[in-house]
């Protein structure tokens, strides 16, 4: 299968170009630093008395959300950086000439790149999340309520951006496609906050604008799903009691995204890949 040949090639390229090495080294460094931070939480005192364990875990849960926000951003940025030159770079350098003259379809070439890079995104995210969660557990004895669901949402966010960057890469140079993907990613995040503000103030127009951004680029919607699964039940209950105002907070989600939204996100990825294949088919090499 040509898809897997190209997928292996994409993986080998990223590994040989030492991107993985850099990411692993920096991730281990971040895990070490954040673990040190987590380990300091039990030393916090109030009026000379150490804070109770419940409070330690509460602080740890919120700190973990911030740390994971950083990881999800690293994942998002890395997905964009590896995917935006994936096709255009091969064409610009001339590498694609000899490859695409072989008995391989444009579809297999695009999907092969996606599969290879997606495997890397999944492997990196799964490993980084597992190590960080294990380290936090070791440092303060805190494990978020649903770590697997959380990881799945983070992966989904990475795959959405990966697919978008691949689509842009069929037509635009790596730099241009990368910048566009990142700006859209930022806008979607902001759209989530704006939509939350609309909900908080009961403004339907603004709330709908937020919903539209969640549908156009499902990164923030998936991030909210990830956050939801990191929140301990006590935090959810307390914040829900505060009313809809909390939905504007990008580090909070009162409810998990509906199943229909998950389906939409999966469809979104499939549609963007189909567009990428169609676009690359018509691309002159």
């Amino acid at each position: 299968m040509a898809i897997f040949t190209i997928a292996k090639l994409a993986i080998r390229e990223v590994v040989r170009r030492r991107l993985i090495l850099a990411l692993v080294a920096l991730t281990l460094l971040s895990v070490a630093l954040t673990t040190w931070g987590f380990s300091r939480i039990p030393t916090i005192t109030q009026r000379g008395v150490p804070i109770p364990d419940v409070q330690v875990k509460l602080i740890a849960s919120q700190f973990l959300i911030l740390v994971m926000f950083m990881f999800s951003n690293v994942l998002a940025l890395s997905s964009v950086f590896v995917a935006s030159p994936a096709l255009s770079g091969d064409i610009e350098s001339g590498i694609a000439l000899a490859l695409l003259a072989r008995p391989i379809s444009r579809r297999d070439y695009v999907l092969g790149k996606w599969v290879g890079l997606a495997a890397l995104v999944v492997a990196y995210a799964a490993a980084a999340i597992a190590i960080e969660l294990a380290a936090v557990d070791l440092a303060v004895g805190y494990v978020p309520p649903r770590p697997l669901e959380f990881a799945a949402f983070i992966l989904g966010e990475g795959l959405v951006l990966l697919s978008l960057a691949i689509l842009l890469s069929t037509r635009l140079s790596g730099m241009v496609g990368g910048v566009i993907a990142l700006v859209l990613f930022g806008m979607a995040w902001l759209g989530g906050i704006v939509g939350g503000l609309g909900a908080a103030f009961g403004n339907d127009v603004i709330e709908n604008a937020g919903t539209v951004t969640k549908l156009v680029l499902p990164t923030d919607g998936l991030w909210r799903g990830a956050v939801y699964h990191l929140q301990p039940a006590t935090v959810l209950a307390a914040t829900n009691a505060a009313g809809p105002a909390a939905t504007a907070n990008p580090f909070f989600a009162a409810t998990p995204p509906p199943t229909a939204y998950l389906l939409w996100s999966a469809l979104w990825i499939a549609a963007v890949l189909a567009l990428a294949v169609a676009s690359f088919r018509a691309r002159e090499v």
Partner: protein
Amino acid sequence: MSEPAIRTADLGKRYGKITALAGLALEVPRGAVFGFLGPNGAGKTTAVKLLLGLSSPTSGEAWLLGAPISDGSAHRAARARVGYLPELFRYQGWLSAREVLALHCELTGLARSSWRRESDRVLDTVSLMDRAETRVGTFSKGMQQRLGLAAALLGSPELVLLDEPTSALDPVGRHDVREIIRALRSQGMTIFLNSHLLSEVELVCDRVAIVDHGRVVAAGTFDELLSGDTVRIRATGLTDDALARFGTQQQRDGEWLVIRGLASAGIPDLVAEAVRLGGRVHAVEPAHESLEDRFLSLLGKDA
């Protein structure tokens, strides 16, 4: 097997207002070393890219080993029997030469058990065996071009398209490539050689097509293409009457008389006739119309 290796009918390619190919009609018979000659920008590389499906035509049709380029799956299957060295040859710098070749073996669909043997064979052909395990990123341009040629020869394809295959090579490398092409011809392979180097084409090709402004301006074997032999004879003491006996295909060039369309076998008779008519022959130079002369005259430029 009777269909030509390559056939194009009214194959055209426009980029906006620029016409890269204007109704190319071409036929490359099997087993030939076919030279596709033309000045820079004549549309040679465009034609090759269209044949390989790297670019789509804006008009016409082409057949690669009998498979129409408009038929995606048939054309893809035909590409398994085609080798290609692009003009812009770039291979994965992070792979070793052997890994690049293994990748091409895999994409071509060769059996995994044959990859090592095939890679060794083509590396040996292009004299890169000692660099098999070296990262391609450290290769010189010439070595990368040799590697590209090696990749094009994997799996002994029926047709090999070489786009300016010696552009980065030194004279020794060029000689080697000519020898490789001759060896491939003896194995019955069809070679499509894209080049603007007339000497290269003249030395290895059986047939040529000369293309200019996206159109074939002349095509055929060298015998068909070149007007034949010319003899220059320097003789004194010949009257105009005597000269008229040498036919109409002659012209004076100082003391030299240039006679066209005379096979070299006729030279002794020509000299004997000149002497019989009272002439004194000082020198005789058989000449051949060169491809360059023909090329330049076809492009509207005098030699």
